């Protein structure tokens, strides 16, 4: 028998995270890799989250945490798709591969991935999840001013020369 662990008080059950944030993560995956590859992106994201889940994260940022993982999974899928040669006899399978992405987009997402964690989380919540700054602040357990600053800094970094 596995020993009884003592997780932090208030650690939400993973089931609650799936219920509350799963649909947003799936929408994000559909937007990033297309509907045919979205489920693979979603499953990889949630299984990776569950693998590292000990309930030790600050409770409010679960959504940003999941979206960050999803962004990384989507980026990896695009990189893998760009590397993989396309067999001539597998044209009908093309529907199942990651949709081609403009090179400019791929670079943008690589740079999103390279942002400082707080900036990246704030950016994802603000623009991917379309949350107002006050909600971003609540999700990340920061002040609204700090949330604005994180989003602002993230955008400034993305706009500056790579």
């Amino acid at each position: 028998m596995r020993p009884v662990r003592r997780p932090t008080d208030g650690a939400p059950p993973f089931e609650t995270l799936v219920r509350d944030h799963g649909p947003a993560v799936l929408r994000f995956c559909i937007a990033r890799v297309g509907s045919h590859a979205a489920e693979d992106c979603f499953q990889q994201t949630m299984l990776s989250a569950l693998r590292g889940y000990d309930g030790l994260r600050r409770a409010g940022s679960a959504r940003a945490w999941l979206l960050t993982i999803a962004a990384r999974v989507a980026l990896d899928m695009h990189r893998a798709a760009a590397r993989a040669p396309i067999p001539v006899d597998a044209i009908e399978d093309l529907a199942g591969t990651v949709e081609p992405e403009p090179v400019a987009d791929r670079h943008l997402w690589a740079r999103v991935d390279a942002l400082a964690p707080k900036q990246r989380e704030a950016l994802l919540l603000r623009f991917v999840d379309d949350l107002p700054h006050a909600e971003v602040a609540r999700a990340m357990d920061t002040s609204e001013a700090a949330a604005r600053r994180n989003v602002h800094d993230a955008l400034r970094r993305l706009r500056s020369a790579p």
Partner: protein
Amino acid sequence: MNATPATDFAAVRARLGARAREEGLLDIAIARHDAPDGPLLLAATEVGLVRVALAPEPEDAVLQRLAETISPRIMRAPHPALETARRELDAYFAGALTTFTVPLDRRLSRGFRRAVLDATAAIPYGATASYAQVAAAAGNPRAARAAGTALATNPLPIIVPCHRVLRSGGEIGDYLGGTPMKEHLLAMEAAVTR
């Protein structure tokens, strides 16, 4: 390639639960189960059924408590102990089963409370006992009140039949699922054994 479109979140979620369990990432699998007195929430660890929550217990609170006492790696997922529990509960409510065989994980009950629940588990189908009797069987005849607390916090109601314990005067007494459910279970068991 999956036949179901990715936009069907319920199906995607169900496949996630199954995969999480296959990959050994879950500590607790849960399932809802419809029953005559209201929906039940069932939870199982790799050891066995660990929790049955009756309809009046708020699901979020039950899951939160499991997250804090056992592990937050909880998801709706298929699990053999849950399947057995569902089948046996259906049979029990149909009057066709008097003894549950589903494997149990008793880790949520310790000490005197565990002893009270073990004494309760020994009350035969269709029979009843008093709080004082189960307290005595648990080794402390004067702890009827503590026995009442143990029964009120029974993590496995129905399976561990706390509904078979009555007040000393034969009064029905309290029940996690509400007094009407307790009356229903007792009447059903009495009808089957008559």
